[in-house]
């Protein structure tokens, strides 16, 4: 070791280097950091977005960087985009496929049907579901997905995504404050961009130190991507799970409402119109996704854990009226799947249940193609 090392100079140099790294990298990590990815390059893109709380077993993890979510998805691989008719499925965990293998999800089963356009172009479905119930979250994903050239968007909905108070509480929405507030301003969406769930990012948040969690998440996501490539596993499937509730208390409440209330004023139906605005010329098909209709105790009061009968029926009625009024293409498939084909919640299906839904959606698409070319 050199005898004449000056510790003060060493400390000064260290501080300068630290400052350079902390502040000098801001332009690099500010916007496009999440787009740097091994996926679709060295490891295959994921069939669905990264999501999970058990990374050691599922080789998957949740992260809030929207670009990183998309960069890890097969939708980002656009090498064949001009040779296929690209259908994006947007929605909640029922689309994402909780407890389902990638090939058993709605997108997976629709792809297995091997559908083609009349001119022979293959129809390819992409699973862009994300396990959070919020229309605002759906808008965020919808807007981001447009970069990847969809030809058709199928947006699967359920009442639980509609209440106003559910819109901004989704962590992925609140962590993407800048993106969502610009969406609000650009499309004049009736949501408050000053809502307290959005913590305004500071200059410090943009530095290397402020971004350390984000960086670590993106870094780990790449490693889990290698495991995804090696094993094809992207979810932990417990051997046993608690089945969705079939018997209920004598309870008719839905959030803060009770039987006799009018809920439509507090549901974010307007976000569906915003979705159409954001999608522009890309057609959107709206689908009210199937729910568990229980035959258990107090099933004369509630369909399931989420929905009392009065509220859900009101919602269905509203959706029918609004779709006519706004000219939306809308299908109400609420009772398509039998009670026994649900797994751990009232909106999660068995592979067989998904099969029934995928058959129905494929018919819907072909019917629509027959009426009016979608591409």
């Amino acid at each position, binding site marked *: *070791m050199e*005898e004449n*090392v000056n*510790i003060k100079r*060493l400390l000064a140099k260290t501080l300068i280097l630290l400052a350079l790294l902390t502040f000098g990298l801001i332009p690099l990590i500010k916007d496009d950091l999440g787009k740097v990815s091994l996926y679709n390059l060295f490891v295959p893109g994921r069939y669905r977005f990264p999501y999970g709380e058990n*990374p*050691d*077993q599922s080789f998957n993890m949740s992260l809030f960087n929207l670009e990183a979510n998309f960069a890890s998805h097969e939708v980002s691989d656009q090498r064949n985009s001009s040779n296929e008719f690209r259908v994006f499925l947007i929605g909640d965990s029922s689309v994402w496929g909780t407890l389902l293998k990638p090939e058993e999800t709605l997108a997976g089963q629709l792809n297995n049907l091997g559908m083609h356009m009349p001119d022979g172009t293959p129809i390819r479905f992409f699973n862009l579901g994300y396990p959070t119930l919020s229309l605002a979250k759906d808008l965020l994903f919808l807007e981001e997905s447009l970069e990847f050239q969809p030809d058709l968007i199928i947006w699967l909905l359920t009442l639980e995504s509609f209440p106003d108070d559910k819109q901004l509480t989704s962590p992925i929405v609140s962590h993407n404050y800048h993106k969502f507030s610009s969406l609000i301003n650009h499309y004049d969406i009736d949501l408050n961009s000053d809502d307290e769930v959005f913590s305004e990012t500071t200059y410090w948040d943009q530095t290397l130190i402020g971004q350390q969690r984000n960086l670590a998440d993106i*870094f*780990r996501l790449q*490693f*889990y991507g*290698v*495991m995804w*490539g*090696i*094993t*094809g*596993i992207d979810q932990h499937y417990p051997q046993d799970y608690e089945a969705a509730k079939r018997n209920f208390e004598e309870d008719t409440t839905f959030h803060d409402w009770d039987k006799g209330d009018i809920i439509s004023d507090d549901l974010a139906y307007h976000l569906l119109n915003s979705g159409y605005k954001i999608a522009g010329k890309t057609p959107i098909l709206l689908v009210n996704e199937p729910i568990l209709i229980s035959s258990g105790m107090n099933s004369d009061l509630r369909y399931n854990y989420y929905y009392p009968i009065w509220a859900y029926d009101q919602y269905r009625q509203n959706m029918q009226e609004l779709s006519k009024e706004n000219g939306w293409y809308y299908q109400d498939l609420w009772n398509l799947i039998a009670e026994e084909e649900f797994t751990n919640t009232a909106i999660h299906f068995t592979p067989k249940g998904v099969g029934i839904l995928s058959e129905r959606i494929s018919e819907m698409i072909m019917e629509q193609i027959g009426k009016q070319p979608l591409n």
Partner: protein
Amino acid sequence: MSFQEIAILILISLLLGLLIRRGHRENLLLVSSMVFIYWLQPGMSLRYLSFWLPTATLCLTMISWAITAQPEIRKKSKNIWTSVLIIIFVIGAGLVRYLDLGELLGFLHPPRLGQIFLFLIAVMGFFLILLNTKRISSGALWGFFSGLIFIFIIIKTPYLSQQASAVWRTLAGQSAALARTEEIRWLGFSYLAFRILHTIRDRQSGRLPDITLREYMIYIIFFPSFIAGPIDRVQNFIKDICQTTSTYQEDVIKGGERLIVGLFKKFVIADSLSIIALNNQNAIQANSTLGSWILLYSFSLQIFFDFSGYTDIAIGLGNLLNIHLPENFKQPYLKPNLTQFWNNWHITLTNWFRTYFFYPLSRTMRKSRRYSAFMILMISQISTMILVGLWHGVTESFVIWGLWHGLGLLVQNRWSSFAKSKIVQLEESFFLKGAINVIGIFFTFHYVTLGWIWFVLPEPSQGWIFIKSLFGAA
């Protein structure tokens, strides 16, 4: 150890590094090491054991000093003061039970003070008898030696460990039916045992220097190297305890460099690689040959960066405290043959086995004149490597891992003897010499890497299936 724990160790070492230069060097090193062995001891579901195990570490160390020290050293009064300091420390730790210190020292879980007193009276009584014994017999030394090996076997054998856990549970009034394998986690016992065995053997051979109880305690439980080595020789360690050899500024710079390297290796490289490294679960999930190789290479690199990262951290912490610990890894994966790999991988462990098992065994066999040179080499090399395997755990897989390396060393030794003259001729060409070296590195790395399969997968049958998957045969 977590990053937070290491960060605390670094901060305290920085402070201690300053303080020890102002006096009380040995006392500060001893007390800090005692604090850390209690603090770092993992919590266990076995009642009071997280208190008793570090206490046993201290008591075993005291007794091992008493049986290895020369009579004239044993009688020095400062040893009595050191033993009193240790006793006071243990009682102080036991008092935590009666103080409402919450999470600060909640990890200790001491038993009732009466039990601690009874235990300490017994230990001190035995210790004082040893201090006043004129001559410790060779039988006593061997007895203590065997006792340590016995404890080691119990801890490292899954079945015996579970039985011991059941016995402890019964004694502590817990359900024996809930006893699990490897439930007894004795922090640093492997390294503790190696250091004590080293001093016993050196005492028997007359090579052990005269050291006080305090110096001996610091040597055995020195906190930077207590958990993952390196295993320094007492002769080298003592020199550093006795005198300050460099300035604080020099130590901070030198130690800081090693710590940065070590932390990067451990928490960035090794922890990232651990996501894609071979383990019991993913060995059966890989769906391609390439995938299996990626898992295996990742494990091979992960274990190196993890272990050598810990060593760097230990050496860096040692530097902050002006104690110079030996190197443990010197680019082992870049060595052209298996002998050189083992000369540069976990160097202090290899040296320990070489000094206290390989050389004595081969010497004894040579003296008996009943074995050929080849037999001596084969038996010594294979049994040494099997012992190294068993040190990691008494299981079939570790035996196979040891056998894998023992046979590898034997074959490499024979091959080197056979090909030496031919290779010397080839090495006259600079290009060929380089090529031979690269080929050697390639084969050695892959041999070692394939060996890790037995190390990481608990069942040999699983290892065999994985090997087949590497060659597309599974």
